[in-house]
């Protein structure tokens, strides 16, 4: 008798953080969010799905494949003012740009992209916090939609994520047909669940959800390992050992050194800082930059430690699979697949890793 009671109370505790949202209520729910702050969601632009700011709930397109660009631009815009300055007769006035004073909702995020924010949190956080990212992040809520039909090009499972992963989300919506089962993995999400748009979920909904989740995950199996001798230790050591392997020359030869992979990647964060000047006033801005661009590491002397695509492509791999794990204890890839599908020459880093791992010195 006692064990049944405690089991019931445990289940109710879990289920207390899960409710139901009928699809016909979605629009009014979104409209309410739009009243309180900025909302970013997938929108259709021509043939393309892009993650952008919306002004009306009807602009949001849900339940599709992932957007071409990643949601990172809602927290880390491609162009952002750092400060403005003005010369005056006593000297110079500097005005820091607002770092992010508005509430913002990232809506319809795929679980891989939600996870990516956890990596960006570590990079932009730490002992010296980046206020432009951090302030937006503190005021941001991620309402994600689980992937019930993952693309063949998705490989989140291989990177520790999953089509129904809750990591990085405040709410996770699972499409049941005419409604969503809504899980709240965070405190902020739990508060949102109290909104009148949500109702209690019934047993049938929970059962249906379980089946959908299992189907979604098994559709991605078997997840091909990224490294031939998959170990729990990660790829840092073997990658370090293979840094000078001549195989890099062949594997990277077709790379165009454009910025597509880095710009569309949800975890890439490199940026440039430049001044835009008028006669008396001006501003300092930061803009996305790419370690793939030929001049990224070129010094004023003209010396460039990464003079060809090989060094630059290798840097990207090392950064994501060796440096970031060492520095912030997280891999710099969530398996969204954009760099694989969007690369104009189909340079697939998974094949690069696998080829290297076959070359691993024993």
């Amino acid at each position, binding site marked *: 008798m006692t064990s049944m009671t405690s089991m019931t109370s445990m289940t109710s505790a879990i289920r207390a953080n899960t409710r139901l949202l009928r699809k016909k209520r979605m629009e009014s729910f979104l409209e309410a969010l739009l009243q309180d702050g900025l909302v970013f969601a997938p929108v259709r632009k021509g043939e393309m799905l892009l993650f952008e700011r919306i002004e009306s709930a009807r602009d949001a397109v849900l339940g599709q494949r992932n957007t071409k660009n990643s949601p990172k631009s809602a927290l880390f815009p491609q162009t952002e003012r750092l400060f403005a*300055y003005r010369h005056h007769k006593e*000297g*110079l006035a*500097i005005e820091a740009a607002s770092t992010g004073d508005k509430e913002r909702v990232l809506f319809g995020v795929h679980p891989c992209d939600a996870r990516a924010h956890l990596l960006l949190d570590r990079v*932009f956080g730490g002992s010296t916090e980046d206020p432009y990212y951090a302030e937006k992040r503190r005021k941001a809520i991620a309402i994600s939609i689980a992937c019930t039909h993952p693309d063949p090009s998705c490989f989140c499972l291989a990177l520790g994520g999953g089509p129904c992963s809750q990591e990085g989300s405040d709410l996770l919506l699972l499409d049941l047909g005419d409604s969503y089962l809504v899980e709240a993995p965070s405190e902020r999400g739990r508060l949102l669940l109290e909104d009148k748009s949500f109702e209690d979920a019934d047993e049938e909904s929970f059962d249906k959800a379980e089946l959908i989740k299992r189907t979604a995950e098994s559709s991605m199996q078997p997840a091909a390992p990224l490294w031939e001798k998959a170990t729990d230790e990660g790829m840092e050591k073997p990658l370090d050992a293979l840094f000078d392997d001549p195989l890099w020359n062949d594997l990277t030869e077709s790379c165009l050194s454009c910025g597509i992979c880095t710009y569309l990647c949800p975890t890439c964060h490199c940026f*440039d800082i430049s001044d835009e000047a008028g006669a008396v006033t001006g501003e300092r801005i930061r803009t996305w930059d790419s370690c793939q661009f030929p001049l990224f590491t070129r010094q004023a002397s003209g010396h460039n430690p990464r003079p060809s695509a090989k060094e630059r492509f290798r840097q990207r791999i090392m950064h994501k699979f060796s440096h970031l794990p060492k520095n912030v204890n997280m891999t710099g890839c969530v398996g969204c697949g954009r760099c694989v599908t969007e690369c104009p020459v189909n340079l697939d880093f998974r094949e690069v890793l696998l080829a290297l791992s076959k070359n691993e010195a024993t």
Partner: protein
Amino acid sequence: MDNPYIPFPMRIEEIILETEDRKIKTFILGFMREEDRERFTYVPGQFAEVSVFGTGEAPFGMASTPTRPERLEFSVSTIGVVTGALHNMERGGIVGVRGPLGNGYPLESLQGKNLLLIGGGFGFSTLRSLTNYILHEKNRKAFGNLTVVYGARKPGLLLYKEDLELWRQRTDLKLHLTVDAEADGWQGHVGLVPDVVRSVAPTAGNTVAIVCGPPIMMKFTLPVVKDLGFSDENILFSLEMQMKCGIGKCGRCNVGSKYVCSDGPVFSQSQLAGLTGETHF
């Protein structure tokens, strides 16, 4: 919370033309706001990002010593956009400063040790800062013997000629200056810095070597100090890379998994040997 991207203003109080080719100037800056002066505490080996508003920012090692906190000094070689713009500025002009940045020389672990400072050309800035810091009466006793080897291509290209003259007259350091080729009136060494280090052959016993200069000089100095018996932990380098944010966020200046701006720019050879990355010199 502090915004690490916002510079504070400083006024150019003096500009010293250091070299005969007019390519290197030292800018002596004064604080414009009391709160900036109070907050700016640094150790030799650190650097700051100096802004020419409207043109951009560039990193420069602290050439001044923290024992004289009223002014900051940066030596600037005109090589690119920002350095060129700086060179065009005059006394009274306003620049921005973000800093101090980087780790600086590990003063605590250097105490009680003999020091061998090896500098080349324009890289001597932070070693000048360190030398003046050590020579200060409050600090001198904390360190052992001080040997400074500093070289430039020609006598007219040596920086800090006033300091060099003062140091020459002191007995608590050994100063070895060198130029690449014989020159009229030149009394010091003749030869490249690594060769002079080898010929001076300072003892490695309880000594830390600190090297800062052009990549090629550092590359050829390493085997020399190793031959002299310096262990990897006792050889320090101050590295340079293309930088932007200076705080380890923009992803540009890494050597392996370490950012030169925030984990460095000072690294020991044992740290560098353990990093997987493009060769840094």
